[in-house]
């Protein structure tokens, strides 16, 4: 039993698996971005080299920082995403083994953003607290449409909260599901911190924002959190909206779905300029949230009348 738990947490679907796929996904992000810009791009293991290097460098704790907060906070992101990854993968492969439902995953997905906010606030640098403020505003912006979209999926699948229920059917293959999927895709883009929603980290404005004072292993932990998010967030979308990852030979189809979702995210990243904070808020509250609301109304009406495609 203990061996099984250790295997779950550290090998599959835990740390080793999540990190490995995350490294490949991060390479894909950089390579596709490079190809879009007519460059060659980094070698396959580049994200792994980056992390290995960061863990060998000096760890500086700045003078004005809240020391224990500064040191502990980077762990929040990897832990939250690790748990979310285990729950999602288990829901796809072992539908019987219940360890958490969609609400738990939604809460766990907030942890990385929370880590960035707390880390930025505790480093005692004006630019990093500015970045933390922006991250907080961004979270306030994208949480509403994301929850509306997930609620649509819940209504569409008959009111259950278990992830296995979602992964057994294509929610996005209906009008309400498609709208909800588009809204959720935008939220995932913001949650990953990709352009056009990289407002908190804006390299050219506030020099990496909340991460500006982090160096060495602690920065490495933030990078690891980002790698894991690259696996967990598209997997969340696939599980809830796109009919799950599939087992056996179906897993190949699942992998294709994963890569497609990731490439769509990367292309959005590479073809858009960065929005301002207020523009992002407007986009989510006046654009994505009404879309999610329409999807929810359509789903409720469709359920009431009994039209499956609505």
């Amino acid at each position, binding site marked *: 039993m203990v061996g099984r738990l250790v295997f779950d947490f550290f090998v599959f679907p835990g740390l080793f698996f999540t990190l490995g796929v995350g490294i490949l996904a991060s390479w894909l992000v*950089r390579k596709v971005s*490079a190809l879009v*810009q*007519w*460059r*060659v*791009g*980094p*070698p396959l293991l*580049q994200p792994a*080299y*980056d992390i*290995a*290097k*960061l*863990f*060998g*460098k*000096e*760890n*500086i704790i700045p003078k004005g920082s809240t020391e224990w907060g500064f040191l502990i906070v980077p762990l929040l992101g990897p832990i939250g995403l690790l748990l979310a990854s285990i729950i999602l993968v288990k829901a796809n492969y072992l539908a019987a083994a219940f360890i958490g439902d969609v609400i738990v995953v939604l809460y766990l997905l907030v942890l990385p953003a929370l880590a960035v906010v707390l880390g930025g606030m505790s480093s005692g640098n004006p630019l990093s607290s500015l970045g933390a403020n922006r991250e907080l505003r961004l979270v306030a912006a994208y949480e509403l449409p994301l929850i509306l979209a997930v609620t649509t999926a819940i209504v569409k699948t008959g009111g259950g909260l278990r992830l296995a229920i979602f992964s057994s059917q294509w929610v996005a293959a209906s009008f309400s599901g498609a709208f909800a999927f588009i809204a959720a895709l935008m939220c995932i883009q913001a949650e990953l911190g990709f352009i056009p929603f990289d407002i908190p980290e804006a*390299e*050219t404005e*506030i*020099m*990496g924002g909340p*991460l*500006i*004072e*982090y*160096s*060495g292993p602690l*920065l490495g932990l933030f990078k690891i959190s980002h790698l894991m998010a690259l696996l967990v967030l598209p997997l969340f979308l696939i599980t809830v909206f796109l009919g799950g990852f599939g087992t056996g030979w179906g897993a190949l189809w699942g992998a294709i779905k994963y890569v497609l979702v990731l490439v769509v995210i990367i292309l959005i990243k590479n073809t858009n300029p960065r929005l301002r904070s207020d523009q992002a808020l407007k986009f989510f509250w006046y654009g994505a949230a009404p879309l999610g609301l329409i999807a929810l109304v359509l789903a409720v009406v469709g359920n009431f009348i009994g039209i499956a495609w609505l």
Partner: protein
Amino acid sequence: MTWTSWGISKSPWLYHVSTGSCNNCDIEVVDCLTPKFDVERFGGKLVGSPRHADVLMATGAMTRKSKPRFKRVLEAAAKPFIVASVGSCACSKGIFHDAYNCVGPVRKVTRNVDEEILVVNIPGCPPRPEAIIEGLVNGLQKLKEVQQ
């Protein structure tokens, strides 16, 4: 070669410090990121904070005003790192040799802060992007040899 110097040679993150340059070398440093030269092939990328940096690209003849700022950047950067003095001015003060407002080449100022820091000179006015990349490769090779 240690773990760290191996890691740095595999993913050198560049931080760009202007120590009073005429902007020519700055443009050439940014040229290294363009499709034709693409330092990301070797894992290099431009970062915004000296805390993340592995290579400090210093451009310019080190004016009196920029010296204390450059010293603070040196203190803020996470060790180990190397300093690349890009351009003739940064290497030897260039045409500003006897100017009253320039305090010595980058190498001298860096030595005053810390003897251990490795400084690579990349001469040229401005150096071509190929020269900058070659200088980086040589500097990282040197770091591997020093950190035996």
